[in-house]
């Protein structure tokens, strides 16, 4: 998880707006999903993901791609820790917190900062009672996907522009609470699996009386509603030892409406981004241990994003599932 906005506000912004850290595991175990999901019938899962995100230009408000300042080298590294716990047969809760390192090198200046990022608390309902993964499609029951419905609350535990900071290079969070409603449909017919996920988030308006460490006349601000969706397709290789290797390709789209300040629309805000990703997840025989390597990429073409940095990221995650 996490990355508005260094470029700090935007470097951070990038991570903040992307899906939660790529933890391993899915309803069947073994992993292909993008967030921390406890497999059916399992009790507890803990995960850690380290991600390195490299910034390479950005799209302006009109979707035109621009290069970063000459001589710059901008990146962010995030270590995300998460836990998911089953509370009954069909409900699970999760908690995730990242630690963020910003590294912003310009032609003759370097800014290295770090701090805890924004955290998430999630609850997820599994609208299915049995594992829906199957080898064959014989009956109508075999076609039933694993359907999830849930909500995630983003808690502004990071360092935002509205905290007691010196300037934008210290930023590791956006400073707003956000409630996301999400649903996903996942189907595995071995060796194939496919997932569609949709997410709608609403920020909570807040008061601001300080900007970058300097008190200002108080005002109210809210960020725009956010929608994201993704679709993925994966293939599982069964290794002789019983271990599995699942390769997944995904496409994701994210957009966020314009912000409002004291009720006025901020015409300079609003963002969007499209991206591709590839993931290799290795799981042991009982799916209790999963390693996951992901690479996400966005082409530097015009109109693949708006008002947002162009990034590529590499992440490595490990997840352990308890019965």
């Amino acid at each position, binding site marked *: 998880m996490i990355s508005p*906005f*260094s*470029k700090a*506000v*935007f470097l951070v912004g990038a991570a903040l707006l992307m899906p939660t850290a790529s933890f391993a595991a899915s309803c069947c175990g073994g992993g292909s999903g993008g967030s921390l999901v406890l497999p059916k019938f399992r009790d*507890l899962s*803990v995960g850690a993901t380290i991600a390195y995100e490299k910034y390479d230009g*950005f799209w*302006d*408000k009109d979707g035109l791609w*621009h290069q*970063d*300042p*000459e*001589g710059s080298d901008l990146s962010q590294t995030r270590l995300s820790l998460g*836990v998911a716990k089953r509370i009954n047969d069909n409900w699970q809760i999760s*908690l995730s*917190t990242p630690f963020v390192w910003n590294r912003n090198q*310009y*032609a*003759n*200046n370097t800014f290295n900062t770090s701090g*805890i990022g924004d*955290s998430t608390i999630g609850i997820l309902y599994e609208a299915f009672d049995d594992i829906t993964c199957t080898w064959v499609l014989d009956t109508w029951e075999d076609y039933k996907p694993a359907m999830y419905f849930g909500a995630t609350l983003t*808690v*502004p*535990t*990071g*360092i*935002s*522009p*509205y*905290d*007691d*900071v010196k*300037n*934008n290079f210290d930023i590791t*969070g956006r400073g*707003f609470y956000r409630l996301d409603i999400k649903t996903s449909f996942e189907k595995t017919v071995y060796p194939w699996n496919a997932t569609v996920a949709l997410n709608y988030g609403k920020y909570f308006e*807040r*008061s*601001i*009386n300080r*900007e*970058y460490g*300097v*008190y*200002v006349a*108080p*005002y*109210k601000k809210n960020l725009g509603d956010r929608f994201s969706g993704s679709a993925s397709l994966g293939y599982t290789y069964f290794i002789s030892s019983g271990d599995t290797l699942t390769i997944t390709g995904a496409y994701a789209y994210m957009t966020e409406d314009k912000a409002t*300040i004291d009720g006025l629309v*901020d*015409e*300079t*805000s609003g*963002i969007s981004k499209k991206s591709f990703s590839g993931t290799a997840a290795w799981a042991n025989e009982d799916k209790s241990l999963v390693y996951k390597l992901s690479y996400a990429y966005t082409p530097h073409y015009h109109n693949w994003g708006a*008002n*947002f*940095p162009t990034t590529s990221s590499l992440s490595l995650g490990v997840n352990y599932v308890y019965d």
Partner: protein
Amino acid sequence: MFTIKVLLLTALLTLSACGNTLDDLNPSSDDLRPTVIANSIGSQPGQKAADFSAPATNGTTFKLSDYLVGGTFSSDAVVFYFTMWCPICISHTDHLLFNIIPQFQGRGTTTYVLVDYVSGFIASTTVSEAVNGYAGSIFTTIADENQTILSQLNGAMGKTIVIDNNGIVQMNEDFRTGDNLIHTLNRILP
């Protein structure tokens, strides 16, 4: 359950150690601006900005006092925008260029200055100005090579500062929607 409790406790302790972040968990709407002494040297509205100079991409040296009363290029107002050539910076700058500046054409003289506080070299600033389409525009672009202006004016990404012809700071805040900049210029321009 024990694991969960340990994790929650760890998270709480971590957050407690980062007291800086707690302001976001419970935002304040109190006006905590300190009282400033009018015309004292500083960066807050009502204070007088200390003089400074920096290299500009047009090959000259920008000196604040040159744009105040009695200076060579005396202006009714000087508007500074702190840029790091990021997406939101470009969005703000375009909004300034295409939506705000035209509203004040013919009303006195205003100098608009882009302050590049990240590059550290005027040569890099010149390239960034050009590739983002601002070379030859109404903006005077300067390189805050040692971040002295950033420090002196309490700058940051998107900070917008208006100084009148007496050197008095009339506005110092994030660009936000640009409406406060319009109000400020409406107030001080003839």
